[in-house]
């Protein structure tokens, strides 16, 4: 008798899956990405009644077609990993749409339990569900839960153990579709059984009728003739139903979901609170929605960066006092310096990660959990569409003006892998606070604020342009907004805090080694006296192409670590803080330098964030692209300005 039970949580987005997951796993979690995907993978363990229960929180999805990566991950996980129990979390207040997913999940043939969540919210809306009847119809045990209060979770786990022990099979409990379709499904099932397919026969049959590529490929390896049969049957359905087979199946399934919902639901008059209704109306109001959104986001921005900045300064002061102490102990020397640079890297990491990321994650999850992010997406969709993204991307973009690291991480609120990739790329181009320092203290100070403003506008234009190009160039579905607008609700603070903690932990694991390595490498260059040769080697780019003084090459290298140091470095190298005194560093060169600094490479912490969010390969490509792009752009700007300004 196995003492380990594998449990998967599956369901629509925003049904309370993560709350249940966090409730069950507590501090025994591991957050990572699905191999090779930018989709988050949350795993955890629970010890319950002598059993070790491994729990995985599958992505929130609405269907099991292979349409999005999240859907592929879910169905492949359930088919390949065969979890002992699948807990389907459904929202009691939108039963019909949730059941559409449940009906498909049943077809995957794993033992199942339904956690009918948010029954209290449903009751407030006047929806009462007959649990016994629902169990009867679906042939699946149903446990009513109120996850945020922990109600029903114990019963849920008891049921998990009971089912895992008995190994109840739900394979034959599927809900039949309409006669014409059902007849053909059964004919296909007979042909599929015994093929040795890893999918359950009924599921495979339906997917073949829908023309699902993944299943077709599998079947093709075993019996290609079957696909022809399936296509023939699909055509028959199409001519009977008068619409494409795939469409007919979706409609049928919804019909069933609707009938089931009607049978088990009893509706009384809703007791929805007036306040929430008003809030909802106001926050998406044509007129008031925008000022409310802007103020809310500014408050959020302000909170993250002032709270963050304050703590960051505090930590910085603390650590750099440590430097004097450290130096007096180690009596400097190259080894000591190398150690200090590694320590400095860690300090840089700590002063970025903790102060900014902690408030960021908390605010982000609060916005998401409460439902406000959907409202922002609704209001901003039209504008964001112009750069190939939809409304939700507005939030990470805005965060980017503070710091690119949280901005990259903020891109996780987007639904599809493609959108996340485009958005993370875009946000690394946004001038963060560090780059703002460069823009303001060079162009702003010496050429005037209108030039600084022009640089911002130029940056925005480039972002729109590159966004559009990335949107056109990257394969995948075109961006279009189809999302659920769930009701406002109180975020579950405990879940938010746990989510924050585990994600920061994950970031540290990836970012710190990289930051330390980078710091040490750059220190080594300095110690070995390689700065001169490297700067000379860079001179074809810096001097010939960009028209900059040769020594600026140093600042470009060190800027990889922290961009705000570039200006300070510039003044140390040239021994003046009146940069216009520097020979060969006139207004044009200053603009070119600023443009290059703005685009040329995300800083090392941002690269780490990129790796965490979209993987090594894409992070590398984006970094390389930005280096080339910045140099190319800088050279063009240089020549262009020389022509018009003389």
């Amino acid at each position, binding site marked *: 008798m196995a003492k380990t039970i594998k449990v998967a949580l599956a369901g629509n987005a925003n049904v309370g899956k993560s709350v249940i997951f966090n409730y069950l796993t507590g501090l025994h979690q591991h957050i990572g990405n699905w191999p090779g995907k930018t989709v988050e993978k949350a795993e955890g363990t629970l010890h319950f009644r002598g059993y070790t229960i491994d729990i995985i929180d599958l992505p929130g999805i*609405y*269907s099991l*077609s292979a*349409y999005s990566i999240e859907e592929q991950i879910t169905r492949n996980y359930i088919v390949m990993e065969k979890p002992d129990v699948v807990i389907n979390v459904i929202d009691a*207040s*939108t*039963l*019909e*749409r949730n059941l*559409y997913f449940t009906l498909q999940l049943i077809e995957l043939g794993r033992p199942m339990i339904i956690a009918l969540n948010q029954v209290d919210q449903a009751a407030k809306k006047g929806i009462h569900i007959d649990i016994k009847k629902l169990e009867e119809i679906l042939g699946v045990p149903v446990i009513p839960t109120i996850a945020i209060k922990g109600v029903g979770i114990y019963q849920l786990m008891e049921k998990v153990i009971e089912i895992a022990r008995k190994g109840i099979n739900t394979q034959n409990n599927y809900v039949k579709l309409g006669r014409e379709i059902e007849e053909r499904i059964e004919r296909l099932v007979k042909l599929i059984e015994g093929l040795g397919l890893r999918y359950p026969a009924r599921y495979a049959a339906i997917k073949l009728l829908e023309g699902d590529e993944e299943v077709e490929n599998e079947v093709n390896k075993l019996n290609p003739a079957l696909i022809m049969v399936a296509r023939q049957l699909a055509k028959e359905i199409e001519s009977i139903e008068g*619409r*494409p087979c*795939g*469409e007919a199946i*979706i*409609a049928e399934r*919804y019909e069933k979901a*609707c009938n089931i*919902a009607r049978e088990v639901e009893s509706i009384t008059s809703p007791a929805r609170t007036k306040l929430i209704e008003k809030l909802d109306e106001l926050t*998406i109001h*044509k007129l008031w*929605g925008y000022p409310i959104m802007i103020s809310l986001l500014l408050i959020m921005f302000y909170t993250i960066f002032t709270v963050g900045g304050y703590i960051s300064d505090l930590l910085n002061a603390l650590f750099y006092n440590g430097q004097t102490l450290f130096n007096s102990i180690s009596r400097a020397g190259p080894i000591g310096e190398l150690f200090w640079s590694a320590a400095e890297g860690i300090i840089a990491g700590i002063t970025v990660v903790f102060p900014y990321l902690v408030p960021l994650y908390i605010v982000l999850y609060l916005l998401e959990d409460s439902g406000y992010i*959907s409202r922002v*997406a*609704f*209001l901003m*969709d*039209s*504008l964001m*569409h112009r750069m190939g993204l*939809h*409304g939700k991307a507005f939030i990470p973009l805005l965060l980017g003006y503070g710091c690119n690291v949280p901005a990259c991480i903020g891109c996780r609120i987007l639904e599809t892998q493609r959108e996340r990739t485009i958005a993370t790329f875009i946000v690394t181009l946004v001038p963060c606070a560090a780059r703002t320092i460069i823009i303001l203290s060079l162009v702003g100070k010496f050429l005037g604020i209108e030039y600084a403003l022009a640089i911002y506008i130029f940056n925005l234009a480039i972002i729109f342009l590159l966004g559009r190009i990335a949107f056109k160039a990257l394969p995948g*579905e*075109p961006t*279009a*907004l*189809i*999302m*659920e*607008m*769930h*009701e406002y609700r109180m975020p579950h603070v405990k879940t938010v805090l746990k989510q924050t903690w585990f994600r920061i932990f994950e970031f540290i694991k990836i970012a710190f080694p990289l930051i330390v390595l980078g710091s040490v490498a750059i220190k080594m260059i300095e110690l070995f006296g390689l700065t001169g040769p490297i700067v000379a080697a860079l001179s074809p780019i810096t001097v010939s192409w960009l028209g900059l003084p040769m020594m600026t090459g140093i600042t470009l290298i060190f800027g990889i670590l922290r961009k705000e140091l570039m200006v300070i470095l510039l003044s140390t190298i040239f021994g003046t803080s009146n940069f216009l005194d520097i020979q060969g560093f006139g207004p044009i060169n200053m603009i070119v330098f600023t443009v290059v600094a703005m685009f040329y490479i995300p800083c090392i912490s941002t690269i780490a964030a990129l790796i965490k969010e979209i993987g090594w390969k894409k992070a590398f490509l984006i970094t390389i692209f930005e280096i080339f792009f910045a140099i190319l752009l800088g050279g063009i700007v240089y020549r262009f300005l020389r022509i018009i300004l003389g």
Partner: protein
Amino acid sequence: MNNSDENKKRVSLTELRAGESGTVVAIIPSHGRGRGCGHARRIMEMGITPGTRITVIGSAPFHGPIEVLVRGSRIVVGRGIAERIIVEVYRSNGKDD
């Protein structure tokens, strides 16, 4: 003007006013890009299938997305998608424009 009775009209979802309801009759597949039927499928999988009752709750300004009530849940669809959702509505001629 002689036809003052209520009559059925087929219009795209974008033409419905806030608060107005109709029945989905068709979803026009997008053409030109990729496998085409993708969006139509996703729309239907969110519950907007032909034959479903749909009510427009509101829309965002600047040609923004449209919020609808369908099968008891609130769904937001982008303008481009909404244009391809064909809805049958009852409108008397007088109120029409």
